[in-house]
């Protein structure tokens, strides 16, 4: 099993609350079902559980901020395109 699969597994438990809950309930089984080795499964049983929950919450907050910022920028782009389409002139902010 590669380090790449291990990083993919960590990513999943950081961003997917359901996967994280399954992992907390049964670390070895969840890691095994992702194809991780015995050694990797054993390493994951020593997870910093408090830190995992706090990090996941912090990452979710950051993703939320990015989404809001993306919506704001997209809205600005729509306005710019509409202005250009109807006026024939480039939009100046």
């Amino acid at each position: 099993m590669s380090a790449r699969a291990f990083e993919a597994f960590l990513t999943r438990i950081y961003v997917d609350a359901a996967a994280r809950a399954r992992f907390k309930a049964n670390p070895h089984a969840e890691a095994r079902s992702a194809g991780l080795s015995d050694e990797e499964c054993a390493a994951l049983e020593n997870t910093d559980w408090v830190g995992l929950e706090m990090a996941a919450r912090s990452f979710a907050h950051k993703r939320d901020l990015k989404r809001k910022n993306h919506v704001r920028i997209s809205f600005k782009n729509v306005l710019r395109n509409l202005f250009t389409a109807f006026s024939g002139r480039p939009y100046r902010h």
Partner: protein
Amino acid sequence: MVVGAEADAVVAEAKTMNTFADKVGLGWRSDLAAGIFSHLDRIDLLEVVADDFFDAPRREVRALQTLAAQVPVVLHGVGMGLASSVPIENKCLERMARLFEQVRPQFWSEHLAFVRGGGLEIGHLAAPPRSLETVEGAAENLSRAAALVGTKPIMENIATLIDPPGSTLSESAWISGILASSDCDLLLDLHNVYANGLNHGYDPKAFLRQIPAARFQAIHIAGGKFISAPDGTQRLLDDHLHDVPDPVFDLLEEAAALSPNPLTVILERDGAYPSMDCLLAQIDLARRALARGRARRTVAEEVFV
């Protein structure tokens, strides 16, 4: 707070005591633009978040070029995820290379972090397993980054609320391993060192002595807040929304005493902006901490000779 003529005296005194040509600057944020332009005499350089300009309209890049023509600028990347066993996509590096060419910064930097895996985006900087595999993966990514951008990035240590699972190396050994194998220098984030030390039980000053001081090139200082953990304990979150705490200035003095290089120090603030006087006062405190560290270093060198 130190203001006016007194502030000028503080800066002049700190610069006189510091013969290492250290610089102290501020992270560029558009909300701070007016205050920055009014106080360029007290800000040596600006750090610009590169990712904000990757998809920006041409006029915004032109504005950045105008800024860089007036003030020394460095570029800071936040989204590459170079410390990973997964090879970085050329697209990410090409965007940085293009911006680097357009802006001609003094240097560019990125983080010792991974940000995605298995097709999912974490949305922020995450600490990868500290292992030989990620040391090798980071070294390969950094080699490609240097080749495509044309110059090596300076790499920043990150804060992490979780002790990264699957680690076989200490944080200091892992960072030292990546710097040695990639021949990259370090952007030492002192609030990250402080936070990780508090959250994961190590002495931040001892940590500074475990990583190669000859690699210290740039330094970040910032603030954060304590957040409650599900078990009732608290951990320090590096949120860049608070003033720099005193222990971080102590660490800055320590880093200046250890480092043989001129240092570029950047104050990071991402929101909840205080007055410009408050930010400038923190820049002045950084100059004083640098001067204290440099004075200790000079005395130590004289004793050694």
